[in-house]
């Protein structure tokens, strides 16, 4: 498990949203095979953006309230927040550069 990725509960997640960094959160579960394929991509992003973006993973079985809040109906789903606001939703598998482009566009502003 990578040190650059956080695994927040509801209050920790809310604190991340209020923080000064953009937040990328990957909703996943143990039993979801595509989620496990996305895992290494999220870890890459965590390392690449360490200190600039809060990269988080939320297990939908352990944090059902967060999954319900964002009406997650298919996993993996990756949400990207900037200044607490949802700016991007990616349902399903994507290549790393799809997320990177969104993050770069936020950071460059």
């Amino acid at each position, binding site marked *: 498990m990578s040190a650059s990725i956080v695994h927040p509960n509801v209050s920790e997640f809310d604190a991340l949203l209020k923080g000064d960094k953009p937040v990328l959160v990957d909703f996943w579960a143990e039993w979801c095979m595509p989620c496990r394929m996305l895992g290494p991509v999220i870890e890459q992003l965590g390392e690449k953006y360490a200190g600039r973006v809060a990269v988080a993973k939320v297990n939908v079985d352990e944090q059902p309230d967060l999954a319900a809040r964002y009406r997650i*109906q298919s996993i993996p789903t990756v949400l990207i927040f900037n200044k607490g606001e949802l700016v991007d939703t990616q*349902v399903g598998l994507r290549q790393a550069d*799809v997320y990177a482009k969104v993050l770069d566009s936020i950071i460059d502003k």
Partner: protein
Amino acid sequence: MSERIDIAVIGGGPAGLSAAVNAVARGKSVRLFSAGENPLEKAENVDNYLGFYKISGAEMMQKFRLHAESLGITPEKGRVVNIMPMGDRFLINFGGNIVEASAVILAIGVAKAKEIPGEGVLLGRGVSYCATCDGMLYRNKNALVWGLAPDAVEETNFLSSIGVKVMLVAKGERPEELNSQIPFISGAVSEVVGEDFVTAARVGDDIHRTDGIFILRSAIAPAALVPGLETEKGYIKVSRDMETGIAGLYAAGDCTGTPLQISKAIGEGLIAAQNAAKFIDKSKS
């Protein structure tokens, strides 16, 4: 995770078998994944492949397969659900197991499936293609399975077993293997209904309220199979080297476009395998 192989070939038709044979001939380790029956099996008579004439499609496929088997290639039956390009390798979700490969050749044929109204816009908002991936999110909720693939019954039984209130829609009569408490409707889904999220599905003249719909087709659209894969009119875009826009990912046969013929498929399989082998040699050096 199993040991990384050189080349994963997806599809057991003429293009896939040709690719596998030629990849082995270049000393590469190969696994071939095949969802099942090939349309060629059903051709009564094949007359447009040079050197083989007045031969049945089944007989021809048998010869292709024997050739592959003589080189130690045994098609592995099962469904490839996703392929994830990682930059330096690929992760392949083969029926719930992750296989790692340096290069991938798609020889997946043509998906006859047409998207129905509402399907694309509500994908991930109640529409799913994978019961084992998303099923748990529908525990204690209503879901409808539209079964267009042979494994749909099994998947429906699975959803029921984890606590989804599920019904199956499929053509023909109620399948015997379907658990007796699961409702069955004979027919086809013509529309997915919902604004932000799925609320219902139309089957014939009836509207069935549901929280989710699992559309289980034998063939998955190429773009849904590999994130970032470029297609044109449903066919995978390739160069003359049979390379897609993703490095290390090749395609061959009907999935790349017309003419949908055996000789073209076999030729493309050869080209794809040669270039995949070159790609691997280059990235190793």
